[in-house]
């Protein structure tokens, strides 16, 4: 791993070269926007916390065209799937918070063999910006992350002493930097970085403790806990939490035919919606709100954790900030852990 020191002009030069050579995206206000060479200043000062729009948009396209087909009976290739013509472009995501970067790594576990997800991963370089300041809704440390975490990133930038310390983490990250970019970080920079990391972890003895606790919990006891009733009562069963959540990755598939040109699309679905589990028979195993609310939290905290080893939550706090009825996952975690 290569560690560099960059001043602001060095960073702007990098951004300028990325904006020219490939697609550059960064958080602007609440969303992820394409950044042109004229708009570089906007992305170097980013407010604390994760932006409202989740980063998953870049990996789980909304919608993803899986293939196209002709629905004209006379055509030679009628009903024969054709792979999508457009391959994803090379792009750099800049200003990604460590929580969001971690979500990319977590989502790529269930999507390990998914060619569409992996193709987007291959074409994307992720440049992170660590969190010198956090929000009151941030809780990455309690779910296995860190404000200075590097998981899922190709480069991590940390603001320090008027400039940036750049940790180049992967060969893709190396490839992003032209020769002669920045200067090698000195011992002072290394010490500074270590001090920031240690200070961030102070008071949190073990960030993996929560996943271990959930793995140890009896599944049926959690499932049958009394708390689901009160928890689900205010829930509107909208998809705000799932659609803004960086680690909610469920989808549905549909064929759309417009003027006999068909495409099969994969689009975001939400376990909060009744249609999510509706069977063709008309039976719905999660017909009531309480069952859907339970599934959302059980999936994140228990099912995913048992299967993949980590919680499917990166502690970005989006769902807490944006839930119209203030359902707070931190309280759910606390209450579930006290279930005996």
């Amino acid at each position, binding site marked *: 791993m290569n560690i560099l020191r960059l001043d602001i002009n060095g960073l702007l030069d990098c951004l300028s070269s990325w904006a020219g050579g490939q697609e550059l995206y960064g958080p602007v206000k609440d969303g992820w926007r394409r950044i042109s060479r004229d708009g570089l200043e906007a992305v170097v000062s980013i407010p604390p916390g994760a932006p409202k729009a989740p980063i998953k948009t870049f990996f789980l396209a909304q919608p993803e065209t899986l293939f196209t087909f002709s629905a004209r009976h006379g055509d030679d290739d009628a009903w024969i799937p054709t792979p999508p013509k457009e391959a994803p472009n090379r792009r750099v995501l800049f200003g990604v918070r460590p929580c969001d970067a971690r979500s990319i790594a977590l989502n790529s576990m269930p999507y390990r063999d998914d060619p569409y997800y992996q193709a987007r991963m291959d074409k994307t370089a992720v440049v992170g910006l660590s969190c010198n300041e956090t929000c*009151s809704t941030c809780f990455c440390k309690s779910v296995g992350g860190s404000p200075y975490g590097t998981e899922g990133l190709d480069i991590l930038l940390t603001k320090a002493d008027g400039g940036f310390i750049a940790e180049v983490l992967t060969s893709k990250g190396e490839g992003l930097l032209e020769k002669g970019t920045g200067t090698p970080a000195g011992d002072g920079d290394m010490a500074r970085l270590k001090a920031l990391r240690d200070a961030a972890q102070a008071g949190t003895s073990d960030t993996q403790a929560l996943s271990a606790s959930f793995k140890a919990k009896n599944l049926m006891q959690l499932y049958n806990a009394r708390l689901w009733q009160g928890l689900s*009562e205010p829930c509107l069963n909208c998809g705000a939490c799932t659609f803004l959540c960086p680690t909610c990755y469920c989808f*549905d598939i549909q064929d759309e035919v417009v003027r006999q040109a068909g495409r099969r699309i994969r689009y975001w679905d939400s376990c909060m919606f009744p249609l999510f589990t509706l069977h063709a028979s008309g039976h719905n195993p999660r017909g009531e709100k309480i069952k859907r609310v339970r599934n959302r939290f059980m999936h994140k905290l228990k099912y995913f954790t048992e299967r993949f080893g980590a919680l499917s939550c990166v502690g970005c706090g989006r769902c807490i900030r944006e839930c119209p009825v203030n359902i707070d996952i931190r309280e759910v975690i606390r209450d579930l852990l006290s279930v005996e």
Partner: protein
Amino acid sequence: MSDTNAKITEEIRAKARELLSSGEIAAFLGFTSGSLPMTTRPFVAKRPGDADKLIWNSFCVMNLANYLPALLESLEPPRGPKDPPPAGPLPKVGVVATGCCSRNIVVQMQERQVDRSRLVILGVSSRGMVDRKKVMAAAEGREPLKVEEGGHTLKVSGRDYELEIDRWSAVRDNCLTCAHNNPVISDYLIGPVSNRDVKDRFAQIEAIEAMPANARWKWFTDEIASCIRCYACRNACPLCYCPTCFVDDSRPQWVGKSTEPADTALFHILRAFHCAGRCTDCGACESACPMGIKMRLFTRKLSKDAFNLFGAEAGLDPQAQPPLATYRPDDPEEFLIVEEKK
């Protein structure tokens, strides 16, 4: 908490406790405090002791009528779909209702979604609820860690700032143009009665109507561009109770599922029209929207039309027929082509 809110909170708690203790109601629907500043949670109190969790402030932005049909049904003894309703009176629910919420209860009565005899309504006059997004905007991106409500001010403070804003400047757009602050039906009235008057009820709409058609279309498409199709607007709305919403139908599929602009536009247009003549402008849709879309302007336009064409305002009289479910010989019909154009 302002004195008024503290008094109203106390009275709501006392009444809820009394009604639950006496067994007159089986559940009381109100608000409890949230985990972040400026948030509240709809809350169902079932035991007299729960009543102490109830609160009242300017952030009670969800419309409680939305929860009533399901809550009433959940209290009925379980029965099969073909079993007759049980004999004797069914358990009652107590609910806090402002002007708009009470009007939505009236709409639900007109549309046979709730049975008035099973409700005990605690009416509270609304001072106008505060829009959390407006307060955030006033804080210019700095996170508010504490918001204290005074009589006419909001004290906002964060890590390294403190500011005081005029409460009225942060009141929701729908509350600014509300002509029915006082509950239209109630069993008990709590707190002071509002005598706030409003001019220019539809000024926001007239400004949009005055745009040329292409500018108006641009305004509309820009407004919904950030929509993520989470349906928080629909689910927060007490008017939306269809067992299967048109967007959820898959056979036939009326509207596409992704965030392609045409699909998003279709969803918002159809949702708004579905609320025509029924919407009380409670603003729950806008308050629920995580993306800050001002979709209430769409329904407000239709409220204006219903008012101007049929003199109808939603939810004022339980005996009245909804304007789009009735016909009068003198209904305006300028849209009819009575003569072939030459």
